């Protein structure tokens, strides 16, 4: 605590607040609000009822009007703080509303009906989380299917990416063969080919091999990523060749050398690539949007964008689904951000 205070009051040069200290803190606190605020507000909003969402100006936390069960009435009634004609304020339950007059009763003495002008009453509100926003889409829509499709694409694509790229990196770092440099050059050259440039021909290739409207059509074009080969190769170059020679003396096959020696030793680089692959594949949008046209094959990203584009946008469901879509990324962020941020700064990877 004392270090925190010492830190907070520490200033440039030690004499008074320098303007740069003020700028720094304004920038940092502002950044905190601007960067986290939108996601936090979205998350709170996702727990609001449709009525709560329609409110203006909106509240930050999800509120609902408190309800009470009153004797003699079937349904629970909403509670209000009502200002009465004599100037006193009482907590009353609304039975019904006719024009600008609200008929209210005292929950403790429900016999007598009290008429109150609607301008003179304020709802009694409590914080309440509308969890049905989360449970309903699971049953009503294909949400669970989208989730499953996304998980399938992410996990499968990442596994294939790791295997295929590490094999290629092994070949390119530990073998001398004709055309090695050519292969490396081709891989590096395609670093500059973004998906958006080859959309049309890629689509026709996927269709002609029968992968249109198939999750494999989403997975396959993305797995041989040049970035992956590049990082893994750079890492494997640091593994001493003597290890491989020793294994060959012991009659290990080349596959065993790859699988038992190289892969375990490359684990740190594989881990970085795995994290990135998961984030990339989970967030993919344009390509799945093109390849998948059947609803039951949509990934979360495609499903979300299609739902939110429809005319009768059901925001309470959309928001909840958005939050669910964010969860894996937020988990990655919480547990691995240090790892990722140093990884990016080191390799300029994205």
């Amino acid at each position, binding site marked *: 605590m004392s270090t925190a205070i010492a830190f907070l009051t520490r200033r440039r040069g030690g004499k008074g607040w320098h303007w740069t200290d003020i700028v720094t803190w304004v920038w940092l606190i502002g950044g905190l609000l601007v960067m986290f605020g939108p*996601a936090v507000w979205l998350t709170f909003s996702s727990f609001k009822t449709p009525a709560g969402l329609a409110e203006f100006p909106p509240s930050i936390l999800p509120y609902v009007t408190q309800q009470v069960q009153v004797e003699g009435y079937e349904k629970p009634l909403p509670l209000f703080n009502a200002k009465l004609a004599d100037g006193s304020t009482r907590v009353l339950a609304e039975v019904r509303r006719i024009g600008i007059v609200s008929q209210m009763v005292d929950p403790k003495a429900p016999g007598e009906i009290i008429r109150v002008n609607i301008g003179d009453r304020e709802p009694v509100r409590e914080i309440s989380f509308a969890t049905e926003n989360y449970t309903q889409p699971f049953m009503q829509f294909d949400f669970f299917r989208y989730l499953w499709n996304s998980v399938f694409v992410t996990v499968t694509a990442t596994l294939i990416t790791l295997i295929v790229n590490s094999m290629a990196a092994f070949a390119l770092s530990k073998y001398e063969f004709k055309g090695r440099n050519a292969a490396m050059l081709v891989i590096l050259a395609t670093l500059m080919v973004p998906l958006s440039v080859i959309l*049309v021909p890629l689509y026709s290739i996927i269709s002609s091999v029968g992968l249109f409207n198939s999750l494999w059509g989403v997975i396959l074009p993305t797995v041989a990523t040049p970035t992956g080969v590049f990082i893994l190769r750079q890492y494997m170059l640091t593994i001493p060749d003597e290890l491989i020679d020793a294994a060959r003396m012991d009659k290990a096959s080349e596959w065993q050398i790859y699988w038992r020696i190289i892969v375990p030793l490359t684990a740190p680089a594989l881990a970085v690539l795995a994290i990135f692959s998961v984030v990339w594949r989970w967030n993919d949008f344009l390509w799945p949007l093109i390849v998948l046209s059947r609803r039951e094959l949509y990934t979360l990203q495609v499903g979300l*964008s299609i739902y939110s584009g429809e005319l009768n946008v059901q925001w309470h469901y959309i928001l909840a689904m958005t939050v669910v879509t964010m969860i894996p990324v937020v988990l990655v962020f919480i547990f691995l951000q240090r790892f990722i941020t140093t990884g990016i700064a080191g390799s300029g990877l994205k």
Partner: protein
Amino acid sequence: MGLADRPLRYLQKKTGIGGMAAFFLAPNMLIFGIFVLLPLVINLAYSVTGGSALFLDERTFVGADQYRQIFNCTNYLDPMSCQEDAFWTAVGNTFWFVVLQVSLMILVSLITALILNRELIGRSFWRAVFFFPVLLSPVVVGLIWRWILQRQGLLNSMLYPFGVEPYTWLTDRTFAFGAVVGVSIWAHMGFYTLILLAGLQAIPKDLYEAAEMDGTRPARIFWRITLPLLMPNLLVVIVLALIKAVQVFDEVFVLTGGGPGTSTLFLTQYIYETGFVSLPRNAGLAAAASILMGLVLVVLTLLQLGVGRKNENKGKRR
């Protein structure tokens, strides 16, 4: 994978170690060839054919017609005077987007990196704060901001106390374009901040100490030490950001869908809509447009490789 040992040992006996190298390389090269190299070649073929058929053998050869259609303009600065007015609108929008987004984002990233480079408690926390949106998916980014900019949204409610009536911001052409630029900066600046921060931390501390001993003013230190030594990183970051900005699509598609009107229609969306959405789909025109876009990207990438190489040499000399 232990199961693979026996058959692979057999393969090795047959082909030798050189054969195994090919075996390790094959899966990657195969996927690569089919899904990246082949499309690159076919793209050229598509751009010189016409018609609405999908497969190349059913398409008719039209030569340079697609390109002629694109470049059939009386005044290139006025999209409406062109036959392909949507393409030129998208080009203009993309140009202004790239200029605004990259310059503003690099400025914001640089300021943030400079601030994060100060002696701060919990520096890794603050670094993470600015990095968080980078991980979010474009669809989530688009939805978050659509939610904030809608009528009952946070922006309106923050302006309401100042007497501003609620407004549907994203239906305003100028504002929608600004929002797309701003949201894209919000989503990506953390990445560039990190790279710049790494560059700042590589600047030797003793340079600063020496400058402070001499009583050099902070502004002078920035212009004479920090900026020149950061320049290599800054250049790389600028080119990377340019390449990324030219391809902008995902978050804009969700945020505005290219609208209102065509005010946020960008090149990638034009290619997507020409090739896949509009009927009859025009794969030839989309391919031609994507090749033109690819040319711009190749130039930018070569620029980046040049910048990167120059930096490497500089590093060696130092």
